[in-house]
């Protein structure tokens, strides 16, 4: 069964304390892995697409990496404004139209 699991469920860091969020997946024929940021009461905001193992993407303090089984979202020297829920989704399997979503990691950065 196609599945996406994100860990940890919640992560509390001090400002400037770097860390990583994990997204592990089982899907046949991965076509893309997507990271989103969601602020409370708002729709998810698209961050990155990763297509193949070994690929990396960066945006400000965020860096996403991909292997054949998982993806990491590395946060370097985070600031309080990086606090949000980070969602991971994959496209693969039999469907061209659907994404398989993880439950998200709630990140809290304390000043």
């Amino acid at each position, binding site marked *: 069964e196609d599945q996406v699991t994100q860990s940890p469920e919640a992560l509390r860091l001090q400002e400037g304390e770097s860390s990583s969020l994990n997204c592990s997946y089982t899907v046949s*024929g991965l*076509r*893309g892995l*997507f990271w*989103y940021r969601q602020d409370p*009461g*708002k*729709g*998810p*905001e*698209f961050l990155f*697409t990763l*297509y193949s193992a070994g690929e990396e993407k960066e945006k400000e303090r965020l860096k996403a990496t991909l292997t054949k089984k998982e993806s990491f979202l590395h946060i370097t020297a985070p600031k309080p404004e990086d606090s949000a829920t980070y*969602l991971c*989704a994959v*496209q693969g399997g039999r469907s*061209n*139209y*659907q*994404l398989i*979503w*993880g*439950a*998200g990691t709630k990140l809290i950065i304390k000043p």
Partner: protein
Amino acid sequence: SQTIHQWPATLVQPVGSPLSLECTVEGTSNPNLYWYRQAAGRGLQLLFYSVGIGQISSEVPQNLSASRPQDRQFILSSKKLLLSDSGFYLCARGGRATGRSSYNEQFFGPGTRLTVL
């Protein structure tokens, strides 16, 4: 820009009342459109998706329905709301799917917070 509009932003409805949520998309023609529901502290549950006018696929059997009367308009409806219909409803548009190399980045609207009392 490719903006997604949803309204209303918040809605409080009694059990048994009807529902109509509207989503419109700007700046793109023939988009794939999606309705999701997100319960508090949980991931996204796909409800419906549409690849064109009048074409609706349902993922979860329930008392909700969807329609796509125009290319850039997607409507979520119910004849009688249940308490369990409360949640955050999100409309999204996706990329075009063409063969094995297709990709499907999805972009979301601001959402509608529905509370059924």
